[in-house]
Structure formats: C-alpha cells, structure tokens
C-alpha cells in the first residue's frame, strides 16, 4: 500500500512537468535561431539536447533562465512555464528566477576569488544564510554534493581559478547548487574536461538528478546515452525529435536523427 502510494506520487510528478517550453522562437536580429520549440522538463530526469553546432541548443537553453535578456538584439517569443507560471511574464523577478534555475557553463568560470567565496556568493546575495555557521554549512554540503569537498577542504582560501579544469567545473556546479535551485542547466559542461574529470561530473549529475530537473547540452552521443533519460534532437533551430533516450538511440523515428546519431553528419 505504502509502496503504491509513492509510486502514484512519482507518477503524478512525472505527469506534471517542472518546466515546459511552448512554441519558443528566438531571433538575433534577422537570424531566426530557434524556431518554435516545445519541450517538457521533469524533475528527477536528465534531458539531453543534442544536434550539430549552431542549431540553437545553447540559445534555447539560455531562454530557460532568461540569460538571453542581456544579449543585444535577441528577441524571444513563446511561453516557458516554471511550475505553471510563465517566466517571461511582466511580473516575474529575473533575479529570483535565476536562483531557481541555475546554470553551469561550457568553460569552467569560477570567480577570481577564494573557493569558499565562490560557493558562498550565491547564498550571500540571496540572503540564504543567517550567520557564518549557516554559510559554512551551505558551502560544505554544496562542495560535498559536488564531490569536491575532500579535495579542497584544506585550502578553502586559495583561489578557485588555481584548481584544475575538472575541479573548477565541479566548483561551478557546487556554486550553482548552493543557492538551492530546482532546475540546473548545463551547456556542454564536459567539453573542456579530460575523460576522468568527465566521468566524475557524470557521476555527480546522476546523483544530483534525484533532486533536480537537469538539462544538458552535449556533443557526445555516448554521454547523452549514458546519463540522460530524455533526449531532444535539434536541427537548424527546429526540434526534430524528442523522447526517451533509449528510444531515440535505438529506434529513431526521424531519418535526420538516425543520420546524426550514427555519425553521418554533424
């Protein structure tokens, strides 16, 4: 009985998407970069966005936390619902939105500050910690969850930029989860990392999945197949095909998808 209740709960959660994009179009001036994309993102799931370079994956991803707002000449139309509220509504506070929808970038970009300050920055500006002990705890748990604590606990004051590339990227993930987001967006987070660091980040994402909805842009078919539950294939600004990762990789419905995942173009 107990078990069926949780199962039922999981099913309803599956049914209601955490975020859903409805007919999103993005234009950079005359360049129509994203053409009418609708996509649902669920909690406890990793969604991969795959497709050849320049097909609008990053652009779409950046719509999800309105990072495109600051890009000159960029115009977004359509709706993106976060818990059924349109994030492009007038009365939405962008600062709060970005605290709820965190982002990890392609190139590790720690602040040129100490490791501690890197992680503590988000909680500080959002007032999440009431005192130093609180903050210390947030920093420690975030680093712990990012799998970095053991490596850096003795040098919290050294600059984050002095870490290795893989460590820097995990620091950026720790920084993102320190503000308690609900969704994490990752734009090719492993493209600058070696295979060992990549494996660490992938393990980390798999663990984080239990609490967040994760979206990852990746160029590696293997990575998408390994870690994600859902996959969306973009081509020339259009969403060609989306579905369960296993289905996309074993039985793609669209010819372009098949060509792409078998490496015939891209």
């Amino acid at each position, binding site marked *: 009985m107990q078990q069926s209740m949780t199962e039922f709960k999981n099913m309803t959660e599956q049914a209601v998407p955490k975020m859903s994009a409805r007919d999103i179009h993005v234009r950079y001036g005359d360049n129509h970069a994203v053409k009418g994309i609708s996509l649902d993102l669920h909690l406890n799931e990793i969604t991969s966005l795959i497709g050849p370079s320049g097909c609008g994956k990053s652009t779409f991803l950046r719509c999800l*936390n309105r*990072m495109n707002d*600051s890009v*000159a000449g960029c115009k977004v139309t359509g709706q993106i619902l976060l818990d059924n509220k349109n994030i492009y509504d007038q009365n939405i506070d962008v*600062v*709060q*939105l*970005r*605290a709820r929808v*965190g*982002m990890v*970038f392609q*190139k590790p*970009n*720690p*602040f*040129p500050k100490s490791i501690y300050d890197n992680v503590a*920055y*988000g909680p500080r*500006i*959002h007032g999440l910690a009431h005192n130093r002990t609180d903050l210390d705890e947030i920093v420690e748990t975030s680093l712990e969850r990012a799998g970095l604590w053991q490596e850096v606990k003795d040098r919290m004051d050294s*600059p984050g*930029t002095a870490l290795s590339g893989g460590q820097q990227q995990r620091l*950026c993930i720790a*920084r*993102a989860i320190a*503000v308690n987001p609900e969704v994490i967006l990752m734009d090719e987070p492993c493209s600058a990392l070696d295979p060992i660091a990549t494996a660490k980040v992938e393990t980390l994402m798999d663990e984080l999945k239990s609490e967040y909805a994760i979206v990852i842009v990746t160029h590696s078919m293997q990575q998408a197949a390994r870690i994600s539950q859902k996959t969306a294939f973009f081509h020339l600004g259009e969403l060609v095909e989306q579905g369960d990762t296993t289905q996309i990789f074993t039985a793609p419905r669209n010819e372009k998808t098949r060509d792409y995942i078998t490496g015939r173009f891209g």
Partner: protein
Amino acid sequence: MSDDLNIKPTDWQSPEMVRHTQMRNRREKRFKLFGLSAVILAASFLFLLLGKITLDAAPGFLQTSIEVDINFDKAVIGDPRQMGRDAFIENVRRTNMLRLVQASMDIYFSEVTDRRDRRRLLRLFSAGARDQLRNMLLADPMIAGTSKRVSLLASDDIDQVIKGHTDISLPELQRKVKNKELSWLQKFEDDDRVSLHFHSLFFTSGDSRDPELSGIWGAAVGSALTLFITLIIAFPVGVLSAIYLEEFAPKNRFTDFIEININNLAAVPSIVFGLLGLAVFLGTMGLPRSAPLVGGMTLALMTLPTIIIASRASIKAVPPSIRDAAMGLGASPMQVVFHHVLPLAFPGILTGTIIGMAQALGETAPLLMIGMVAFIVDIPASFTDAATALPVQIYLWADSPERAFVEKTSAAILVLLTFLIVMNALAIWLRQKFEQDW
C-alpha cells in the same frame, strides 16, 4: 603531364634554398638591428634631456652663505629685559636689521669709508638676511647684547660668482659684479667665511622676486590643491560614466553620439578647456580668478575623457564568462558590476586615473587662461586663494631675466619630473598589486 604532378621532397640543400635561408636570416638580423638602434636613440635622447636638466638643476638646490660677526647691539634693537617681551618684539619688527650688518661690515672692512661703497657692501647679502636676523631675535630674544657669528645668505649675483656662472674675465663694465665686490668677496674667501650648502628654503618658500629667496612650496601646494579638486570631480564622474556607458546604456544613436564626443573631447587641445573654464567658471559662474578650485574644475574637464576611455577599456576587458557566472546565480545587474566587474577592472581604472592626473599635473595652458599665472608669494591655504601650479611656476621662472632663475627653473623641472615619475611608478605598482588573473 603526370610527372608534373609528382610531388618531390623539398631539397633544402639546393643552392636556391640555401640562398633563401641566408636572405631570411639577414633580414631578421637587419630588423633587429634597426629596432635596437631605435631604442638606443630614444634612450640616449632621454638621458641627454634628463642629464642636462639634472646638471642645470644641481646648483639650484645649493646656496652661498657668508659668515659674518653680528653684534646684536641693544642700542639698535632694544633691550628685552627693560622693555618687556612684547615691546621688544614690536621693536625688532620695526628695526632695519641691515644696520646690524652694516655695523659688522664697518668693523670687518674698516678701510671702506665711502658712503656709497658701504651701501654696496650691504648688497653682497640677500634681502633675506634681514629676515634671518629678525627670526633669530624673535626665536631667542636673550641673544640681544651678545655677539655671534651668523651665516647670512649671499645675494644672487654673489651666489652666481661662487658657483662659477659669472664670467669674471669680462671687462668690468659688462659685469653686474664689479671688481670692488670681487675683492671684498676674496677677503671673505681668504678668511674661509664663504660656504656653498644645501638650500632648504627652495623647498619651503613661495615665489619671490629674489632668486635666492624663491621656492617651489607655494606652487607645489597650489598643484596639490588643484589636483585634489580634479581628482574628486573627474574620478567619480569618469568611472560612473564609464560604468553606465559600458554596462547599462541602451545601444542607440544617442549613446553612439555621446561615445563619439567623448573620444573627440580627448583630442581637444588643452588650451580650449582653459577658454571654456574662463568663460563658464569665471565668466558665468563668477568664481574667483587664479583659484585652485577653478583650476581643478578646468583640469577635471580635460582629464574626464582620459579616465572614461581607460575605465571603459578595462571594464570591457573583463571576460563575459564572469558576468555570465554571476548573472546565472541570480546577481542583479548592479551586483554584477560592483561585485565582479569593478574589482577586476579596478587596476586598469586606477592606472588610467593616475595617468590622467599626471597629465593634469603637467598641464600649463588651461591654467594660464584662468589666471593661475600671477606672481604669488603666499602659500595658498584654501581652494579659493590665489595660487599657481608647478608647471606654471616653471614657465614664470623661465621667463625671468636673472641668471639665477635659470637653475631654479631646472630645479623646479626636476621636482615636477620626480612627481610625475613617482605617479607613474605608483600606477605600475598598483596595477601589479591588484591585478588578478582569471
């Protein structure tokens, strides 16, 4: 046909290739040689300039004094015990101290009796000798009635003779210092009473008509007051403009127009800013002439474009990835700027500001226009006092006829150059201290 398409390995030993390599090496060598000679040429001009100024300036920091036995005669200056302290001080202020020197000379040169010659004897000494004696008495009234050997400042003409700047082989008529003076000076020298020593007055006094009494302190204080005004106006306005233009301004025709005009302002000759200051600050606003306040405001206008351009460049140099990172965490635009962009841009902003200030420190033309070129003896005490500035002081002295002002001019140039070098060194030091890598 197919033979032509055959790709043969390059024969690096062939005479043609060897010649090619040799030619390339020769070209490299020649280029290095040109570069080196250009650097050497520039460096030697700089050394020549600095060397010449330093050589000219060195005597400017020295001054001749002559030791004289002075009897502080109570009959001349009064008796502090009898008259009381205040009355004595009043009396000392009114008494012509040269009478003490005259009495001393009458004893030392007992053979000189002619009235005109006795007067000429006094002119061996600087007008500052009076103040020297007066200050001694005011500091210690109890020396009244005693005799003392006092080292009195020589006049600038005598000073020039001692420093070897006067050609005494010229016929007497063409010389300012005549044979009689030379013979008197010789007697002092024979008695070992003439000395050349470091002239601290040069660093502590204001301008004067007498070269041996003139100093740069007045001009230095004027420059400091002026630069202070320049800094507190130009730095905040410049940095805020740069932040606004770089981070917040919408990109449209209007901001483009402002941007072009700021760049144009940087190229406007400085004298134009002087005319503007004259018309607006003195004419329309009615602020006082010759004041550091107005000078500082005028120089601020001139420095603004420099600071804005330097600040914008260093704000622009902050990598976008840092902005993305902060924005992605939910930092507001202002937090992004003040927490991340400014700290990283700060070394560049600081360097730009210091270089702008150094330019302002060396600027003469705009200050001439707003009247900071007057002959001012007093050290300015406030932003509205009449004042002059270091480069203007140099200009004024360079224009003075006395030979002694030549070395004062060079000395003042050396002081100004020192300030400029210190400021630039500071800029470099701060830059290295605050520079972080990302």
